[in-house]
């Protein structure tokens, strides 16, 4: 497990101090850490456990239970493609295959140049405009493979 950098450690400490006294704070803390660092580093677990009086195993158990929390640094952009039924009915499978081909990665992977992480998502609440995609928290509807290419190119013009 990689040690935290000084600035990562400082960030984790700051979040812990701010949130530890809230009721049921662990998820809030993990969100805070991921929002700032992009992922929840394994080396943050002992710090959190000590602060909240939990065992490391308990904290680890929570981090790994939730799909949202990442264990490694993500790419510069996070691309989520909806795989759920409504989007499937409008070609989401083909769109996902296109994305994997174009980026040269599978779901849950990051491109070698660190530009894009590709993730599946199970409904974005945009089922009236399927297929749906979310990139860095921006939602897109009726996304064709060509439109996806455009959206990716807007973010990394060199690719």
């Amino acid at each position, binding site marked *: 497990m990689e040690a935290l950098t000084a600035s990562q450690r400082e960030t984790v400490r700051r979040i812990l101090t701010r949130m530890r006294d809230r*009721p*049921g*704070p*662990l*998820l*809030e803390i*993990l*969100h805070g850490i991921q929002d700032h660092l992009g992922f929840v580093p394994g080396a943050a677990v002992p710090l959190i456990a000590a602060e909240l009086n939990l065992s490391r195993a308990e904290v680890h*158990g*929570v981090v790994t*239970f*939730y*799909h*949202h*929390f990442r264990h490694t640094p993500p790419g510069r952009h996070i691309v989520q493609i909806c795989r*759920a*039924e*409504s*989007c*499937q*009915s*409008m070609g989401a499978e083909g769109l996902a295959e296109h994305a994997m081909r174009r980026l040269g990665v599978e779901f849950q992977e990051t491109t070698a140049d660190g530009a894009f992480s590709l993730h599946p*998502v*199970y*409904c*974005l*609440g*945009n*089922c*009236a*405009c*399927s297929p*749906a995609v*979310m990139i860095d*928290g*921006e*939602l*897109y*509807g*009726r996304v064709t493979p060509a439109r996806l290419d455009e959206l990716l190119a807007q973010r990394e013009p060199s690719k």
Partner: protein
Amino acid sequence: MTTVYVPRDAGALSLGAEAVARAIARGADSRSQALRMVRNGSRGLYFLEPLVEVDSPGGREAYGPVSAADVPGLLDAGLLEDRPAGTGGPAAKHPLALGRTEDLPYLKSQQRLTFARVGITDPTSVEDYVAHGGYRGLERALSLDPAAIVQAVTDSGLRGRGGAAFPTGIKWKTVHDQAADRKYVTCNADEGDSGTFSDRMLMEGDPLVLIEGMTIAAVAVGATQGYIYLRAEYPHAHRTLIEAITAAYGAGYLGSSVRGSGKRFDLEVRLGAGAYICGEETSMLESLEGRRGEVRVRPPLPAVKGLFGRPTIVNNVVSLSTVPVILERGAEFYRDFGMGKSRGTLPIQLGGNLRRGGLVERAFGLTLTELLYDYGGGSASGRPLRAVQVGGPLGAYIPASQFDTPVDYEALSGIGALLGHGGIVAFDDTVDMARMARYAMEFCAIESCGKCTPCRIGSTRGVEIVDRILKGIEPGANIALLEELCETMVQGSLCGLGGMAPFPVQSALKHFPEDFRRARQ
């Protein structure tokens, strides 16, 4: 000065509403035309989004679907010019002009009670909310005895819209009757069911109605703290809710003395973290407490021993947002909508392969055919519709031969289906039902909380069995095995995920056996 409405709803934004808003602001500026822009919710007519509206003496005019590139033309046609009373605006002849919004057939025929303000008001303005009838339900509630509030909700016939359809008033009564040092009102805004988006639309389009509903619940049962458990996939709703909560505090509708009543109610949003099971109410409570979202064994009920061990209301966004109109207009008014044991209105969400996807709020009782064709306009692809899935990923598939079924709790359960959160996903005749069955099992395997073996292991076995069927390996024996596995999961699972994930599989086997008898490459 003309008022223009451009939605901030995530679905509208997903189709370019932000660029449209910017183009209108820029265009007006360069023409030195004054305008007031309201970023409203969506009317729910997603086939017309981005839907731009303009105030006019005769009622709002609608234009759509508008792209940023259309904006200069619309401005040239006079979109922002003053409208003489009684006439359509000067842009009324533009090809994107749709006439008065209220007259759009898709909207005109609806009965919007819960969604009364969605798409109409500025979502985070308390002033606008009150001007459109908001907070009258709370005013009424504050004048009543708490038990009378609970009674009104019971009498309205409202059943939980999150999926389990449990009578809301009865749940509230249990919490009301508990003696405790603290009680909670929690809103289940996990909206994990695919094909559903009514919670999202409400939270983005009229978050104050949810806040009002939760406040009424708190007053009714004596709770002082509320939490909205929101799925992490909804960042737009997150921002809107926080803005609206801040505004409600600012106007004295939340805090230490709600409207000077001396009753405290504090409200906070908590984010989920991408786990479908956290929509199950006890798993949601575990998650709110900061733990793994593992389902709790009942009893005790959350209403008796819920969040942090205290009596807790858990209700869906739509259920809570329906409470204000019940208090405002009375239980009878609400109960008079609907049929049989399905009282009131239901916000139905039309998604998937339809020409006109969107939100339809009507009294219970419309048939699938009416919804899919009269509203939905048939398939988007132009091919025949073959199946719909109602009620999310755990809902049954219904074949076209049963499209005459009314969409209410009893009629759907009569054909072995369920209403769930009211989402309808349509598929055309290119759908491969064996693959959909495989997906149902795969989804269960991904999302299982891991507590029971039939759900955790069974779902993975289910995927393997369907894979063999897809390859044409001993289809007869494998179909029998799959049926048996479904039965084991239904019988041996603690909660609805493992217990209902077999429903889409069983219904696919029953209604579309031909798809399981054909080997794929």
